[in-house]
């Protein structure tokens, strides 16, 4: 009995009228935890009852504390008949189990009913007393912190990054139980809500146990999803990155332990440069006087004022850049005891991880060494073939398989790790597409080696199993190092055009870089970034079972290819050369597949300037055609010029080669631009590389291709004053002000026309997305100048003729008048000291696992049809990356390359905080929400715990609630309200890393019914307005103001 949960019901307000006769309500409350229930007295005839109950005490196991929610039910007392339920409140008490998070939950919660929505509010107080303080970590995983944020949380430093954790639990979906036929919709919804709440708790506890086993104390980048498989069950799964986090007391210097753990391999000890002992790198910390995202350069003034003693062997002439990364890690003490030694070969401590995956998307400086490219894998599964649906084994095996594939792709790219990793599913009837993607990367193993934390000596298997020596050369300059190719130039995984880095001129870089991560803040960019989307619809025949799965498998590679081509073309059209935050979603419906790829395009200074786009005709003799081509070519060129201006991309001097005359294309080529449904035969050995040679040649030989080009050109740029991106921050904007407006928007489009073509569908889908963006710009026009950040599009095909797009994003204002430059303290250096040959990281690491891959892929699982070995396997990004080779064929390509790069020396960045007017008199605390990991102009001083909420709403009076739009509008507003209330009750004033992970809407207008499920998550935090002086953490004002800049349209 290691815990005592105490709850007190204080009062209610705005209750609904339950007794028509008196227009009043006789309310009382049931408080339930586990199997124990307490009741308050009835507060007769009041809509604003004051119960002021005693403390209800539950004595429970901490395991239950983790799994179970506290369930509060408000009822109307009825003497003669059954008591009527008014609504419920579920309170997740997990945040109270961690000493560093919230200590009490106290506040007004909306009383929620799945049929009626919010019906009044209730004031509740909850506390937890944990006994056996020393012992409690043994029994359960209480105390492990969870963060949705995909970077090291702002007020922590990562002592160590342990790696990937995953878990999956399965249960029968209450909606599919026999009892569902006889119980009310309300009872069914509540059973489901409760079950998912329980499963989430269980999942979190299990993951927590894994983290403890690994020696960590936190999960960062925690991503939990649920799959409504229907008959076969309800799956809740989660992935995350286990870390050991140290809390930074604000303003104080971080731990300066100099300890080398005895259990670390001797080799590691020996190679530890004495000069490094001074301090472990500190990262993930939010520097207090800072309004934007973290850049490591803040620290530089310190280091420049007292230059660190570089070791003699260091190539001094260009020292500044090479050491920046590490120097920036030591700002806190002010004394630069941390000396980087250039010749010390760092012992690469890379323990064998089954999956060296990281769900993080932004990293402490120096962690990310090189980025290879995007790796992804998809697999089509049949849910009705699961032998033992109630057990997680089959699903575990599926994911295992996909992860192995991802791992081997990463290996092929010469990378030992995958960052920005995520997993998703799309389910339609019995077919399920599992997808995983990430960015292959080489990481600095120093951050995964045992840190300064003293971890119990129980399990060091992880740290000692495998060590791989890696000669760590002088780090590349942070502004370009990550672009340098990780693979061997002579033994490239795919044909790519390499050039010397335009930034340092030392290392090779590819011509285009695609990644799923956020842009490293230290990266050098030219101009601004922008949202780039590729959208695609493919019709498929309605089918069942294996036939259906095969059809989908066959379509997938084409979709990936076309999405990729679109992305590439759009990137070129904007004269950019890199994509960050790439997220590709393929959604399956009964008669179509939807593909949506979103990313933020940017011009990386280190990469070569992109070439233009060349239009080639099929029949050169035809004069009218020639003319047509010329017109289109002109339009494209104009667009490129316009875009360069718009995104302020003005790299130095472009030399243009003379354009060669277009040469007829072989048939084969043109097929790639059209529907591929007929070509499934050739696909078993899909070689997409035949398309790569002319990736930038658009050939128009038929109407389809013309359509393609038109769609390319129809993407309207955002109106003046607006920028958009899907990453955390907008490359090229650094002076955020405090205006923040988070929003969720959902659109459903009904296709009435039965005989649609792929082209027609594409157009509809593209228009749908474009119109959504236009609507956002219009609605948020009062915030100009502003940027829509973290635009997260989710597509679904809820029914045969419906396309659903849901978007969550945040609009943030910035100061236009200030120079749009990076902070002055950013070091811009040309050239770097990366002289030593970079040793390829040993791939033996993966040797055994690749054999596993072969095994798994050859083994046909009895439980399910394994379509993973079909064509979709070929369509990984690894293959697609090959496409980016320039086409030099037949001289039909205009090659535009930049020779010289002027270094845009950034001006000083001054911060301007738009003053937050504060409005008194409001009794409801303001809670800001954002999908980002920070709020501009504020500093997070405390993480209060994870918010992970699941709601169902149902109505049988759809028309009366204003149709589906009215229904969903109020539901989303209610969800926001409940999230805000929970955060406020935890004592927080903001939610960061907020996301709506699921929005499943089912409607039946004929029956006047609709049902919707929403799952949201985020991190509850306390943030304070950033003061100019970082020295006064005690006197900072808690952000209480409404975002004056974010009131929305006026």
């Amino acid at each position, binding site marked *: 009995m290691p815990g005592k949960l105490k709850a007190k019901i204080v009062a209610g307000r705005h209750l609904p009228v339950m007794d028509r006769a008196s227009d009043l309500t006789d309310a009382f409350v049931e408080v339930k935890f586990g199997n124990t229930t307490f009741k308050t007295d009835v507060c007769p005839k009041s809509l604003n009852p004051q119960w002021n109950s005693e403390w209800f005490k539950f004595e429970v196991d901490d395991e239950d504390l983790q799994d179970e929610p506290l369930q509060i039910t408000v009822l109307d007392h009825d003497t003669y008949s059954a008591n009527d339920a008014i609504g419920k409140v579920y309170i997740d008490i997990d945040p109270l189990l961690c000493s560093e998070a919230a200590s009490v939950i106290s506040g007004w919660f909306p009383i929620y009913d799945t049929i009626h929505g919010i019906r009044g509010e209730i004031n509740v107080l909850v506390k937890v007393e944990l006994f056996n303080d020393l012992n409690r970590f043994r029994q359960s995983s209480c105390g492990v912190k969870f963060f949705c944020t995909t970077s090291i949380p702002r007020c922590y430093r990562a002592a160590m990054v342990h790696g990937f954790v995953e878990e999956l639990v399965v249960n029968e979906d209450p909606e599919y139980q026999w009892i569902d036929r006889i119980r009310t919709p309300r009872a069914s919804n509540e059973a489901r809500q409760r079950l998912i709440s329980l499963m989430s708790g269980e999942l979190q506890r299990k993951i927590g146990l894994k983290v403890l086993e690994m020696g960590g104390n936190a999960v960062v980048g925690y991503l939990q999803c649920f799959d409504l498989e229907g008959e076969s069950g309800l799956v809740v799964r989660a992935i995350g990155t286990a870390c050991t986090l140290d809390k930074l007391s604000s303003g104080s210097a971080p731990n300066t332990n100099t300890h080398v753990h005895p259990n670390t391999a001797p080799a590691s000890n020996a190679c530890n440069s004495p000069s490094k002992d001074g301090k472990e790198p500190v990262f993930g910390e939010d520097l207090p006087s800072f309004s934007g995202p973290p850049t490591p350069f803040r620290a530089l003034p310190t280091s420049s004022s007292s230059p660190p003693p570089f070791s003699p062997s260091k190539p001094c002439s260009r020292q500044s850049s090479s050491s920046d990364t590490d120097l920036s890690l030591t700002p806190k003490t002010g004394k630069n005891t941390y000396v980087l030694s250039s010749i010390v070969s760092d012992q690469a401590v890379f323990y064998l991880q089954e999956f060296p995956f990281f769900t993080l998307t932004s990293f402490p400086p120096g962690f990310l060494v090189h980025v290879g490219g995007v790796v992804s894998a998809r697999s089509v599964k049949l849910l009705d073939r699961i032998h033992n649906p109630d057990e997680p084994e089959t699903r575990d095996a599926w994911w295992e398989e996909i992860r192995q594939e991802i791992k081997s792709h990463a290996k092929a790219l010469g990378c030992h790790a995958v960052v920005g990793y995520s997993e998703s599913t799309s389910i339609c009837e019995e077919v399920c597409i599992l997808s995983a993607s990430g960015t292959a990367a080489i990481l600095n193993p120093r951050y995964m080696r045992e840190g300064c934390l003293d971890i119990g000596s129980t399990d060091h298997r992880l740290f000692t199993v495998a060590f791989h020596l890696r000669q760590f050369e002088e780090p590349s300059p942070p502004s370009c190092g990550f672009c340098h190719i990780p693979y061997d130039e002579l033994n490239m995984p795919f044909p790519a055009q390499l050039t010397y880095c335009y930034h340092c001129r030392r290392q090779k870089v590819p011509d285009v870089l695609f990644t799923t991560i956020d842009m490293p803040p230290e990266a050098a960019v030219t101009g601004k970034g922008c949202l780039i989307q590729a959208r695609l619809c493919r019709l498929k025949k309605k089918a069942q079972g294996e036939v259906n799965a095969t059809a989908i498998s066959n379509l997938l590679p084409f979709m990936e290819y076309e999405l990729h081509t679109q992305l590439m073309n759009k990137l070129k059209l904007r004269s950019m050369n890199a994509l960050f935050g790439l997220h590709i979603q393929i959604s399956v419906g009964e008669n179509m597949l939807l593909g949506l790829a979103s990313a933020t395009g940017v011009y990386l200074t280190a990469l070569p300037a992109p070439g233009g786009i060349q239009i080639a005709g099929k029949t050169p003799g035809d004069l009218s055609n020639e003319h047509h081509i010329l017109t289109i070519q002109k339009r494209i060129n104009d667009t490129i010029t316009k875009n360069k201006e718009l995104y302020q991309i003005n790299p130095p001097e472009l030399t243009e080669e003379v354009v060669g005359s277009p040469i007829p294309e072989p048939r084969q080529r043109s097929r790639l631009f059209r529907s591929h449904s007929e070509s499934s035969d050739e696909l078993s050995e899909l070689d997409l590389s035949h398309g790569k040679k002319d990736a930038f040649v658009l050939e128009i030989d038929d109407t389809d291709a013309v359509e393609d080009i038109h769609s390319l050109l129809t993407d309207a740029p955002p109106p003046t004053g607006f920028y958009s991106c899907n990453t955390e921050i907008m490359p090229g904007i650094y002076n955020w002000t405090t205006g923040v407006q988070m*929003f969720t928007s959902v659109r459903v489009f009904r296709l009435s026309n039965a005989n649609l073509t792929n082209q027609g569908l594409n157009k509809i889908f593209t228009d749908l997305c474009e119109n959504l963006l236009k609507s956002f710009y*219009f*609605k948020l026009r009062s915030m100009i100048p502003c940027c829509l950040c973290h635009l997260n599009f989710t597509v679904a095909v809820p029914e045969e003729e419906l396309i659903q797009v849901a978007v969550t994003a945040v609009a943030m204002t910035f100061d236009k008048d200030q120079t749009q430059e990076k902070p002055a303290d950013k070091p811009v250096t040309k050239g770097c000291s990366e002289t030593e040959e970079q040793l390829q990281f040993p791939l033996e690491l993966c040797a055994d696992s690749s054999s596993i891959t072969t095994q798994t892929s050859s083994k046909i699982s009895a439980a399910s049809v394994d379509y993973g070995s079909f064509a979709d396997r070929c369509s990984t990004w690894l293959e697609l990356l090959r496409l980016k080779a320039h086409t030099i064929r037949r001289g039909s390509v205009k090659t535009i390359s930049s020779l010289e790069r002027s270094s845009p020396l950034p001006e000083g960045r001054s911060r301007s905080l738009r003053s937050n007017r504060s409005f008194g008199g409001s009794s409801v605390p303001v809670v800001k929400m954002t999908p980002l990991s920070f709020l501009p102009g504020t500093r997070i001083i405390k993480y209060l715990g994870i918010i992970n909420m699941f709601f169902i709403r149902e109505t049988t009076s759809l028309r009366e609630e204003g149709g589906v739009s009215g229904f969903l509008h109020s539901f989303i507003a209610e969800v926001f*309200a409940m999230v805000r209330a929970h955060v406020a009750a935890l004592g927080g004033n903001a939610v960061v890393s907020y996301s709506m992970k699921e929005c499943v809407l089912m409607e039946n207008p004929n029956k006047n019914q609709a049902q919707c499920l929403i799952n949201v998550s985020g991190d509850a935090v306390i943030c304070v307005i950033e003061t100019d002086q970082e020295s006064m953490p005690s006197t900072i004002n808690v952000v209480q103001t*409404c975002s004056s800049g974010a*009131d929305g349209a006026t």
Partner: protein
Amino acid sequence: MAVELDVFVGNTTIMDEEVYQLWLDGYTVNDAVKVRMEGGVLEEFEASADVLLSDTMDQYRTFQMCERLLHSPAKLANQLLFQIPPHRQAILIERYYAFDDAFVREVLGKKLSKGTKKDLDDISAKTSVTLKSCRRQFDNFKRVFKVVEELKGPLVENIRQHFLLSDKLARDYAAIVFFANNRFETGKRKLQYLTFQDFAFCAGQLINSWTIGAVDNMVEDMDVDLDKEFLQELKELKILITDKDLLDQHKSLVCTALRGKTKAFNEMEANFKNLSRGLVNIAAKLTNTKDVRDFFIDLVEKFIEPCRSDRWTASDMRLYLTHYTNSAHILDTFKHQVVWDRYMGVIKSCIFKMYHD
């Protein structure tokens, strides 16, 4: 092919003041879109009609959801559903309770009953205020009326606290409640030239000086019901016209004071007895509810119209009434100075306000 569902929900509720006004004015979504297009918001922001339609629908939905809360504005501040900055809440409330002068002029003094509500379509046609807007305004009047009916304390203050309205608007509502309660006749043709603001001013005067609240501030309906004792006492003023000596004396005092000060002197002198009889008779009859209702029409018929036909200027009026009131104090046989002052103070300022074209 159609957009089946389209919603946009902000964490901070987004509200466009222009759209709010259109919604309040009872425009349908399509009409509102038209108005907005004509307003040029599109050119300003290169958006298409679809975008405007979608935005307008969203906002209309938001307003509809908020409407329930606006019915008891205090709830708006502590509800959790919409995160609306307080200054914006104030705007929402103030605008929601704002009304059209043309509309209020039609219902002023009428019983706020179902019967009147049925006539709203006629009023709508007459005033060209949309029926929807008429209903909202009418319901607002009724709601405020119902709430303050049962409250003790000063009327204006009650309205302001319960509906979080500005002082100005609270006073206007007080006037509306006061008129509805006493059923003052305002619809007659002769009164058509008077604006709502004229009446609201007069209501303020009456509330301040003639109600029970003017003497006792802790009774129910203190500001809505006229002080019965006072009305009774007004009968005593009759002596001013029934006692011939007193009347002549009064006249000569006033004329002495006025002589040479105005061009309309001759008319004043000639009409003195008529006008004085008019005013004092109004006072004496106020014990009858029926005559209370006709208070304003009596003022116009018995006093304002004769003066206007004699082409008195506003300053003539001011001069005359001042001396008329003050001279009564000098009459040694006239004992009802206090009542006289309480009566004439209100009459004077009402007539000043009402004496225009």
